[in-house]
């Protein structure tokens, strides 16, 4: 009953609390009868139980306690209205929390996008306009005037034209808002500014469509500023057409329709028989845009550019200088008439008059030129005919590939080189020797068509041909269809020759066999003589003897296919031929000279050796066993080392961490204990 005695504390309490099973209680009471010590403890415990019931039990919560708790809870946590509580409860669900976080992030991202202005549609326009403004600023001489001009424009047009787009934000560098305002009516602005070129590229289709559309009304609305401006408009276009002549006719028609004329045409015939040329058309500037539209119907538009140059200032400068020069002329004539005394003076005045008149003429010419440029816009059209279907001629290109096997690569290589003549050109020739002593050569020849067959046959005769391929290509010139009338020409034949040593050649047939004989050495010698008789070459041989006294000689040799059968016959004389296996590589794609193709034969000549091996018997077995045991021991030692290498760092790390943690918890416990001791004695 030792266990009952040891567990007496537990049993005493459980008995008093009526928590013992019947069997436990019987055992316990039986023990009490035997054990005086436990009986004593039982008595004490009973007293204490009574004492505890008396003292502690009356500290317990009073009967109204639960009701008090409930009503205080009601006070402290007031009932919320239905909706709020539903929302509050919902917010506690993990899925709802995640959704809310995701929504918040999305909202932030969207806000960031709005702030940085990453949306696509409005910004494109802004960029385009600010580019122009930038370009404007690059020309400081013009900028002030253009600013002024556009200011007046903007004012006069503001009433007539409602803004098509909300004004883009002005770039911060701009001092005033006015240039940007002016830019809103882009085409007219370009027209008004001095020495400004606005190129309308074809790929910028949106802008191009807008340009003519916006130009119409703006020109009509503001006739006064434009009427005084001298504008030179030029355009270039490149078109691909079916027929050059037809297109020129159409263009001439369009030009007449738009009150213009064809100034020049030029054309040239190209190698493939196509025409390519240029047409310069002069049309009234106002009709230029319409003309451009019509032009598109002629053929495929490759590119197009439109430039406008304002020559107003230059024009009026020249005009006023001309006026001055005329006055000067009048004065000089008057001097000549009235104050002519001295001949020298007279001459000087005459000379001056001549200079002034020359100047006047030049300026008149300039003005006339400008007038004509302003009066008519210049349109330069480049026309190119499309590729036609019917080719002009065919060219037959032949390419031949020849692989050779030669016993002496260098000799063959030199023979081919010696063929060189005006009709046989050698374009490349190289001979390679790698570090294992293998030699190969490569030659490229260009052969005149009439000589080619003869030369190729000659080269083929120089060595054994491994492979020969001819590739013929018909190249059509100036078209991609089939031409019945086109003549066919033979181009030079390109011949590429590679020469390798026949040793490197892969054998057509490989044979392995074993010959059992009593005297390996003697039979191997015989084998060598047989091989020589059959025109074969020994490629490698080896000899070995194993611990059992068996001898092996491995001989590998190569013979031409025609001698193969004779060789196999004569091998029977050496001994018993065993384990013959033949492997043949057929190369259906290559032209093979079968008679001379090489066949490899590997022969193992071997003897029987001792009947009882030296490696048998009790001692040998014992030796082997001990050896294997030692090896296993060493292996396990190595494995243990590996395992230690795996575990040791972790064990050390864990030990270190647990040591620190134990120190910390011990220090904390000590502090707590101290605090309790300090508190205790009082």
């Amino acid at each position: 009953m030792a266990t009952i005695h040891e567990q007496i504390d537990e049993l005493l309490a459980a008995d008093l609390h009526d928590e013992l099973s019947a069997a436990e209680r019987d055992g316990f009471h039986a023990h009490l009868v035997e054990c005086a010590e436990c009986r004593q403890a039982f008595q004490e415990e009973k007293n204490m139980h009574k004492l505890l019931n008396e003292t502690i039990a009356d500290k317990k919560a009073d009967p109204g306690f639960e009701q008090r708790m409930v009503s205080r809870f009601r006070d402290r946590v007031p009932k919320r209205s239905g909706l709020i509580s539903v929302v509050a409860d919902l917010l506690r669900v993990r899925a709802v929390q995640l959704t809310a976080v995701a929504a918040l992030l999305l909202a932030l991202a969207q806000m960031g996008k709005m702030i940085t202005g990453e949306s696509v549609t409005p910004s494109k326009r802004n960029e385009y306009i600010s580019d122009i403004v930038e370009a404007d600023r690059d020309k400081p001489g013009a900028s002030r005037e253009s600013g002024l001009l556009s200011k007046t424009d903007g004012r006069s047009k503001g009433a007539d034209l409602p803004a098509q787009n909300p004004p883009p934000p002005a770039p911060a560098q701009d001092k005033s808002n006015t240039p940007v305002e002016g830019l809103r009516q882009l085409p007219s602005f370009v027209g008004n500014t001095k020495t400004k070129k606005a190129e309308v590229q074809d790929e910028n289709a949106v802008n191009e469509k807008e340009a003519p559309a916006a130009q119409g009304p703006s020109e009509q609305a503001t006739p006064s500023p434009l009427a005084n401006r001298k504008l030179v408009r030029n355009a270039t276009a490149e078109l691909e057409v079916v027929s050059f002549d037809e297109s020129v006719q159409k263009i001439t028609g369009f030009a007449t329709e738009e009150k213009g004329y064809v100034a020049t045409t030029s054309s040239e015939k190209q190698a493939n028989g196509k025409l390519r040329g240029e047409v310069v058309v002069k049309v009234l500037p106002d009709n230029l845009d319409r003309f451009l539209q019509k032009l598109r119907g002629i053929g495929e538009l490759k590119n197009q550019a439109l430039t406008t140059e304002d020559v107003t200032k230059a024009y009026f400068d020249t005009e006023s200088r001309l006026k001055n020069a005329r006055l000067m002329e009048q004065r000089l004539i008057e001097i000549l008439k009235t104050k002519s005394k001295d001949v020298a003076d007279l001459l000087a005045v005459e000379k001056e008059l001549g200079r002034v008149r020359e100047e006047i003429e030049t300026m008149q010419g300039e003005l006339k030129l400008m007038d004509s440029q302003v009066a008519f816009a210049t349109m330069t059209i480049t026309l190119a005919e499309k590729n036609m279907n019917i080719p002009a001629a065919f060219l037959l290109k032949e390419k031949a590939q020849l692989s050779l096997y030669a016993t002496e690569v260098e000799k063959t290589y030199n023979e081919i080189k010696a063929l060189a003549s005006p009709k046989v050109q050698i374009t490349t020739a190289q001979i390679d020797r790698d570090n294992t002593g293998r030699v190969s050569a490569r030659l490229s020849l260009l052969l005149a068509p009439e000589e080619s067959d003869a030369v190729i046959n000659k080269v083929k005769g120089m060595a054994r041909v491994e492979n020969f391929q001819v590739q013929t290509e018909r190249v059509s010139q100036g078209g991609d269809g089939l031409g019945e009338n086109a003549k066919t020409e033979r181009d030079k034949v390109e011949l590429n020759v590679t020469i390798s040593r026949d040793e490197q050649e892969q054998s057509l047939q490989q044979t392995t066999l074993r010959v059992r004989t009593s005297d390996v050495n003697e039979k191997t010698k015989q084998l060598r003589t047989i091989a020589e008789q059959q025109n074969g070459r020994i490629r490698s041989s080896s000899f070995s003897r194993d611990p059992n006294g068996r001898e092996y000689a491995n001989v590998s040799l190569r013979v031409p296919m025609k001698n193969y059968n004779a060789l196999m016959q004569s091998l029977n004389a050496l001994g018993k031929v065993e384990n013959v296996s033949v492997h043949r590589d057929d190369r259906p794609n290559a032209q093979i000279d079968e008679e001379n193709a090489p066949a490899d034969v590997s022969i193992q000549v071997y003897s029987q050796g001792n009947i009882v091996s030296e490696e048998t018997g009790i001692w040998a077995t014992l030796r082997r066993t001990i050896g294997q045991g030692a090896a296993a021991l060493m292996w396990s030692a190595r494995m243990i080392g590996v395992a230690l290498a795996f575990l040791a760092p972790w064990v050390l790390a864990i030990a270190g961490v647990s040591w620190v943690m134990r120190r910390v918890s011990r220090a904390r416990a000590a502090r707590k204990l101290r605090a309790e001791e300090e508190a205790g004695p009082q």
Partner: protein
Amino acid sequence: MTDASEHEIYRAAIRGDRDAFETVIRSFSRNLFAIAYGILQNREEAEDVVQDTFVKAWKSRWRVRDAAKFPAWLSTIARHRARDLARRRRPEPLPEDFESSEAVEFESAGQKADLDGEVRSALAQLPELHRIAVTLRYFEEQDYGTIEQTLGLTNGALRGILGRALGLMRKRLKPVLASIG
């Protein structure tokens, strides 16, 4: 009440059903009071702790994943609250409180107060869990299984705890017990 219907009530309380939660308050407030008293040895403070425990439990009820552990969770909150309170009044240590008040009472109330004080000081010297176990048992006289569930103990653990607790107290109160005997 069967286990299933109890769990149903716990689940409803966790979902936010106030009636169910008030039922829980009614059935657990005495247990929690016993726990708090076991730690604090002071009725007013223990009552406050029970209050706070229910309010806090209501606010963070959605953290309870397993309804079966709801009682143990409540008692854990109460223990933490009580412990916090005990720590806060450290500067005015617990035993001093007793003995000075005992000393005053000793003269006036005589034998009964003396016994009372001895028992309380013996109880105060027990480890926390033991103290709680004793108060829970003697306040509400519940069976061991219920107490184990309340405290989140494994089955059968309470027997050892109570045995040790009473054994320790017995040894400490030996002279007093002898005098009663």
